[in-house]
């Protein structure tokens, strides 16, 4: 009941006209940037982060909630109309969504995506309100060894569960951990990897890393391979759905939400698995199996809902434990840190009003998104036709502005370029970027927790084994690591034997 009161107070704070305006701007700008081809939700949030630098935290987070959902919705619009998922989580939406658009049902695809996102986002945020307090209660009792284990799990999960090559995932993770090492060691005050440059003593700002790897890296990569013939955009009118579309959409929305939220809330979750699960489920349950692969509305409704519910779910570990599980949450965490706010169980005590304002703004942002985007969809579709030189010149322009604004030092621009070139090389060699970002953000904190655990044990490695929680987490880590071996040596032979029999 207490949380409900807090949430109500959050709504009261957001309802101030000025704050509503900020939420509206956030949704508009977030969608506009998120719609741009090549810009996924994480990059949208990273690029727009500097806008909020001059604001009070409360105002900043109200705007942020709008940017967050706007960027997500923008991404699904791009996947449907261009067949170009901005992030791996909207890959599945693109499969059926683009087919629908090609078959002249773009309006229905966008509508089911928008309404599905709204339904999933609202339910997801409600679940966030209900679940987070329990996670917080659990998290309060966690000690340093448990945190260390959880962060280890996050590292292993982002490198092993996603992507095709674990080696390449680990390369990316270690690069991120190395970047995170730069600066003064917070415990002993010693400089590490600063190369004698005084400005590096504070470390490399996560925002600079995120913008460099996501935005500059992407712009350079595309520039090297720019398609001279612009991609075909499918024209679209105002999104709407007929009665049969509603009938075919509402169950997939709910099932997608049911898949998305738990996976997002797990420390090793993410949106890829639930979107695929949702797609597979809808394909099996549909009454129109012949439409799958040719543009089935269930194949858009389910995965899109799963995607949004999972995004709401990722906020649970992000807020309650300080553990980001996808790129967008990682950038959001960086945003918190830039305000000197450390997410984790204490956040709900120290910054309670801020958290509840953020959660209330998530509800409001979600609603604004639905109200705005149904009528504005044709305008967003026009953005897809922006000449590519302007688009990528604009990305570089805003990336530079954002990176400079972080610390008002030109050194950040050189770092940005270096990281951009790193991002370029990672795209060239197929190294995933998410492990790097997670490594930069969690690396220093994992070190801190690890050292704290060993402090308690006087340097004995047994200090890393805290209690039941860390045992469980290490078991999960071991399972994730051993899973490919099990599959290869146990499951495949079994299956082969069954097939033979």
């Amino acid at each position, binding site marked *: 009941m207490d949380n409900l009161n807090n949430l109500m107070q959050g709504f009261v704070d957001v309802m101030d006209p000025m704050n509503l305006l900020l939420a509206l701007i956030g949704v508009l700008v977030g969608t506009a940037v998120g719609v741009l081809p*090549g810009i996924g939700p994480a990059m949208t949030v990273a690029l727009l982060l500097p806008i909020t630098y001059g604001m009070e935290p409360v105002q900043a987070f109200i705007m942020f909630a709008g940017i967050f959902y706007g960027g997500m919705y923008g991404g699904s619009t791009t996947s449907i109309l261009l067949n170009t998922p901005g992030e791996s989580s909207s890959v599945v939406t693109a499969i059926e969504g683009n087919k629908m658009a090609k078959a002249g049902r773009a309006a229905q695809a966008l509508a089911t995506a928008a309404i599905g996102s709204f339904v999933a986002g609202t339910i997801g945020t409600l679940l966030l309100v209900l679940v987070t307090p329990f996670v917080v209660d659990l998290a309060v009792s966690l000690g340093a060894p448990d945190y260390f284990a959880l962060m280890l799990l996050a590292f292993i999960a982002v490198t092993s569960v996603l992507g095709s090559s674990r080696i390449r995932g680990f390369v990316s993770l270690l690069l991120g951990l190395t970047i995170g090492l730069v600066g003064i060691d917070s415990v002993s005050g010693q400089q590490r990897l600063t190369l004698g440059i005084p400005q590096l003593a504070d470390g490399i700002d996560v925002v600079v890393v995120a913008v460099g790897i996501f935005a500059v890296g992407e712009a350079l990569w595309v520039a090297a391979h720019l398609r001279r013939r612009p991609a075909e955009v499918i024209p679209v009118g105002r999104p709407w759905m007929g009665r049969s579309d509603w009938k075919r959409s509402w169950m997939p929305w709910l099932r997608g939400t049911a898949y998305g939220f738990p996976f997002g809330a797990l420390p090793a979750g993410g949106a890829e698995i639930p979107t695929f699960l949702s797609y597979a489920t809808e394909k099996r349950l549909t009454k129109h199996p012949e439409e799958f692969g040719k543009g089935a509305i269930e194949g858009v409704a389910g995965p899109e809902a799963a995607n949004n519910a999972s995004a709401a779910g990722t906020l649970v570990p992000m807020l309650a434990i300080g553990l980001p599980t996808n790129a967008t949450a990682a950038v959001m965490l960086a945003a918190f840190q830039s305000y000197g706010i450390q997410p984790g169980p204490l956040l709900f005590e120290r910054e309670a009003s801020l958290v509840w304002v953020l959660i209330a703004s998530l509800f409001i942002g979600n609603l604004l998104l639905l109200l705005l985007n149904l009528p504005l969809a044709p305008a967003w579709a026009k953005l897809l036709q922006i000449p590519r030189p302007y688009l990528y010149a604009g990305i570089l322009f805003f990336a530079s502005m954002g990176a400079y604004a972080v610390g008002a030092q030109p050194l950040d621009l050189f770092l940005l370029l270096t990281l951009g070139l790193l991002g370029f090389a990672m795209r060239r060699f*197929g190294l995933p970027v998410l492990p790097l970002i997670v490594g930069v953000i969690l690396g220093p904190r994992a070190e801190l927790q690890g050292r704290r655990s060993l402090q308690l044990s006087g340097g004995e490695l047994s200090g890393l084994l805290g209690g039941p929680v860390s045992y469980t987490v290490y078991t999960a880590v071991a399972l994730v690591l051993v899973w490919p071996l099990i599959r290869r040596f146990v499951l495949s032979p079994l299956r082969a034997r069954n097939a033979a029999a």
Partner: protein
Amino acid sequence: MSLRVNPVKDRTVGDTPGSRQGGDRAQYGVCVFLALLGTAVIVDALGIPHITSGTDPVGPRAVPLILGALLLVLVVFYAVDVARGGRGEPEAGEDVDLSQGSDWRTVLLLVGVFLANALLIERLGWVISGGLLFWGAAFALGNRHYIRNLLIAATLSLTTFYAFAIGLGVNLPAGVLQGIL
């Protein structure tokens, strides 16, 4: 398995990532880079005084040493994977055409424009250097509407300066235009 290692003779440095046959030998370059990075991390760590205390039995050196060692171990796995024909799929995208080779001229031009902005931003101020950045980047990407781009660049940099620096209090330098803007 190792049959796919056949080095393709006529490949030059920076060849197309899209070529589908043969091992992607440029990946060995990544291995070299990672090995150097790992060594650098270890060397840097060894230069840190080994301070431990009751409150910090680990000290500042342990983590970089472990990290450096992990990097070196990973290099071995990576190199073996490359030798067995493993390759990372270059990232695709709506505007990306991987069937052609890399367009290095565009990339170098962009890097140059970017560096110019980094060097000039404090002296000339964001409005001028940022405008140059946009104009130069559009030029590098093949847009040849010089006058129109100049107008767009000026509008963008002025708008962002007034909106962000003056309106929202974001740190952007005025430079030579101090007092005029």
